[in-house]
């Protein structure tokens, strides 16, 4: 019987199979080749099926050859598949193309804003907390006694007229409440219930019956009060210097103390700062009034002026915000204009700390 040598048949088969594998153009094609080669009825399996009809000697040799062939073909199949998978991935990625220039939403944390007054208030709290000042609060609707009389501003005193006070309608007993013209009543309320040493700041809304280009009927003040047995005007100076340096975040602030008069302090001064602190060299800006608490005020609160002394000062929070952040118009603070609030407002993540910076 003239049969071909099995090994030469196998060689031919291998060559054909490898050619088929190389010719597979995609993953589906290579799968077809795999089934046609290694599947149950595949061409390699066909060769395996021949083993049954062979003599043991021949079977052993042929079996080994077929197995080796199967190994080589399997490897080639796998290799080709990896190549084709790579090509397929490349082709898919080439088709998956997003327009990354499309805009995205910033989300609520990006949209929200904190009002400049709140921000500067938080900054002030941070500064004064470091110097041991607590934050005291009191009502907006006050009595004449706490807003004026106890602060050494008697009836008919010219200072009262200067305060442009908002009054409520008189009560049956003739008394009339008012809207506090400064946060100083909070100082009185504190001194009436707390024994020295006292270190507080008193922030809040205050009201003056006044409305024009630079005045609004409502604005914000922050006052500070220190009462103990030894605090003097030199301490006041230092605290104000430190406060201004910290608030304006500069190493040095030029300050000028001018003697002045307030009924509730003595000696009293008005304070100017060199405007280079806010980037405007060559000018002086009046920023606050201050002084040593008047002995009459201490006595009015039940504190012995022979024993206790201390200082107080008051500064406009809105004004500080305007100076520090270059905000031009006070009236806009209360107009709730979204354009203004978005522009001058602060991110909620911008929580002032001394360690991390008040404004950064």
């Amino acid at each position, binding site marked *: 019987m003239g049969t071909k040598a099995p090994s030469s048949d196998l060689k031919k088969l291998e060559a054909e199979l490898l050619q088929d594998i190389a010719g597979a153009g995609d993953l589906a094609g290579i799968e077809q080749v795999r089934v046609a080669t290694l599947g149950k009825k595949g061409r390699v399996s066909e060769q395996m099926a021949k083993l049954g009809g062979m003599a043991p000697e021949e079977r052993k040799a042929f079996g080994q050859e077929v197995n080796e062939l199967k190994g080589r073909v399997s490897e080639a199949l796998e290799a080709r598949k990896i190549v084709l998978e790579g090509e397929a991935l490349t082709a898919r990625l080439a088709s998956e193309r997003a327009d990354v220039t*499309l*805009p*995205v939403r*910033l*989300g609520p*944390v990006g*949209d*929200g*804003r*904190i*009002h400049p*007054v*709140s921000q500067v208030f*938080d900054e002030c709290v941070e500064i004064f*907390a470091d110097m*041991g000042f607590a*934050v005291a609060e*009191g*009502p907006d609707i006050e009595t004449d006694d706490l807003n004026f009389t106890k602060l050494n501003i008697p*009836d*008919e*005193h*010219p200072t009262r*007229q*200067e305060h442009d006070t*908002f*009054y*409520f*309608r008189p009560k049956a007993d003739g008394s*009339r409440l008012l*809207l506090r013209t400064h946060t100083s009543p909070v100082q009185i309320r504190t001194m009436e219930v707390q024994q020295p040493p006292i*270190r507080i700041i008193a922030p809040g*809304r205050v*009201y003056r019956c006044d409305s024009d280009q630079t005045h609004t*009927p*409502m604005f914000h003040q922050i006052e500070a009060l*220190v009462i103990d047995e030894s605090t*003097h*005007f*030199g*301490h006041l*100076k230092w605290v104000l210097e430190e406060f201004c340096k910290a608030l304006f975040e500069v190493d040095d602030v030029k300050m000028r*103390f*001018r*003697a*002045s*008069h307030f009924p509730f302090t*003595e*000696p009293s001064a008005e304070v100017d700062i060199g405007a280079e602190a806010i980037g405007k060299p060559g000018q002086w800006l009046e920023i606050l009034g201050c002084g*040593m608490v*008047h*002995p009459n005020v201490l006595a009015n609160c039940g504190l012995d*002026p022979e024993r206790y002394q201390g200082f107080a000062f008051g500064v406009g929070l809105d004004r500080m915000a305007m100076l520090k952040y270059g905000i031009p118009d006070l009236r806009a603070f*209360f107009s*709730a204009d*979204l*354009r203004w*609030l978005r522009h001058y*407002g602060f991110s*909620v993540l911008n929580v002032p700390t001394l360690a991390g910076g008040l404004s950064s």
Partner: protein
Amino acid sequence: MKFTLSWLKDHLDTKASLDEIAAKLSAIGLEVESIEDPAAKLGAFTIARVLEAKSHLNADRLKVVQVETAKGKSPVEVVCGAPNAKAGMVGVFAPLGTFVPGTGITLEKRPVCGVVSNGMLVSERELELSDEHEGIIELAPEMGDHVGERYIDIMGLADPVIDVGLTPNRPDCTGVRGIARDLAAAGMGKLKPERKIGKVEGTYDCPIPIKIEFTKETADACPVFAGRYVRGVKNGPSPAWMQNRLRAVGLRPINALVDVTNYISQDRGRPLHVYDADKLKGTVHARLGKMGETFLGLDGKDYEVDDTMCLIADDNGPLGFGGVIGGEDTGSTDETTNVLIECAYFDPLRTAATGRKTGLVTDARYRFERGVDPASVEPGLDLATDMIVTLTGGQPSKAKVAGRAPVKKRVIGFDFDRVAKLTGLKLKDTEIKGILERLGCTLEAKGKTVKVTVPTWRPDVHGSADLVEEVVRIAGLDRVPSTPLPRTFGIARTVLTERQRRARRARRMLGARGLVEAITWSFVRRSDAQLFGGGADALELDNPISTEMSSMRPSLLPGLLTAVQRNRNRGFADAALFELGQAYRGDSPEDQYLAASGVRSGTARLMGSGRHWDGAACEVDVFDAKADVFSVIAALGLDPNKAQITRDAPAWFHPGRSGALRLGPKVVLAHFGEFHPETLKTFDVAPPAVGFEIFLDALPPEKRKSRAKAPLEAADLLPVRRDFAFVLDRSVAAGDVMRAAAGADRALIQDVSVFDVFSGGNLAEEGKKSLAIEVTLQPTVETLTDKDIDAVAQKVIAAVKKATGGEIRG
């Protein structure tokens, strides 16, 4: 308070420059508000002589004049319309290029009716010296010697005017001499001695009786009234130097008699009054007014008198308000020949009250309400008499003084160490002593303390703190050494109270939810307040800025809604605004409460507003407001799911789409919801708009005992999730279903959530809805068998049916 530099130098012997004086004034509490140098305005105007005046060929009323503007120079041709322009006259010339303040025009070379005018001869009005414009200024012929020199130099007008803002405690500085004294005390020269007064006490008695008529209680209204009669005065214009100074400080010269009183008021802070004695009837008395009395004031206005006001009156009735304004009828005129000079003391408080009631702001009130030196009554009368006699002639009578000046000697025991104790400034005793003495105090050493007698012109100095103020003010606050405030703790402690920390956190939370913080007025329109439960009489301002700002706000929402409306008008319909601040339920301190409130309008939802390629934002609804509330409550450390939600939000919300968050029946933590359509209509806000208000004071105090967190309870066994869909009446609340399901097996059920709500199709017709929930079971001991799970499921179904009547969906 205005004065000129030369006026100051009448009282102050100084070599200091104007700048030095100004800096010192501000440093010692006499704040310089402005310095006006007339040279800047009038420096270009010079003395000139008209050499020749001819009629203008082309215009009848004009003249062409040749003007000598400088000695030895050829004349300048000027066209002039003044009727008084004539050859030989001496006038005031403005060369080309000069800005003429009275006309606001800068002179240019241009022809007037064909003739080029090379400058201008000016009137007083053109220099803003007076209203005189009949003709050009005509100076005395001998002024021709000064041709070419500056007009202001020759006329004594080159005198800088200093304006000082006086604090109300310094009546002594309402006179130039007081300012000079302060400057001298502060080392700016020496206070000159008082000017010598001639013999003013006459030989005859004052023919007009003077009386003060008060009760014991009102005697302080005018405790002293001094007068002197001057016979045979010849009134007329006061001298130029006096007129110049009065004009410079903004006073209008009237006549010599009036000018003298104004001059002394300005010079010494001592107001006076001069009556035309021939117009007075009977006795001049100081008394309180009677209701119904009236008089015509010097300002030409009628004034009504009441029984609290101090009057000067004669037998005909009121002449004027003491210390405020005199009367028109008895004032001096050019015809006046006999006068009564008044020098009195009026009570500051009563003067202020009268001034306030009448609205009169006068130089006299300005001084009396601050407290005129009570010891200046007789010296003031003498000074006025002297000046009047000097300027107008006449024979003075003896002075007539009714009452007694309220001069009280004030002596303060003063320990010099007090200066250092209160200010930290250590001064030598000699310096302290020198300052006090230069200010007019007299010192008498007595052991460690010194007895300081305060001058009568300083009613503001009462105690040692006042003296300390005087000393450091004059010594200079800049010399006080800056001294570190001792730290009370090593590392700074927490200072904010729980309430303050909560407010801070709520603010940042709302900002983090995309809301923009606004600050709106504490007062709103009354009708708006009423709409939000406020508007009570007690919270109504008596003197509001406007009717839109008259009622203390009962809630922050009306202000926010107004803001939303304004923003919409500016083109921003999608607004998410919040405010954290106070509102008022009444007028007592406890009635003020702190709220964190917000409004969202249009599509201003959490993830952004408006259209977007990735999905347009839908309109805001009640759940946006609820989510804001829940986030804040959770941020403040309270589990909002443990609070109750009730449907009874206030009337300004939509009745069906709003709720209240409560802790028990009494404590309301928050309101949220869509606004009632009527509310939106009132505020002209376009729907949709939702809002919330969180009552920060209503939150219970935090009970945390330790910083340590509770241990984590994380089971090792996998949780099991089962879904249930119930068919329910439409009115059943999802919260009730969830609560019933969660309560079916508290040990195993860890969580219940709602993942679908459907009420369409057949369900709608039957008034039903379908609610689908996911129940999470968390085994803790061993893995649940199917049997275990079925048992819990049956419990859930039964519990929901029992609580809500809901049937499990097949």
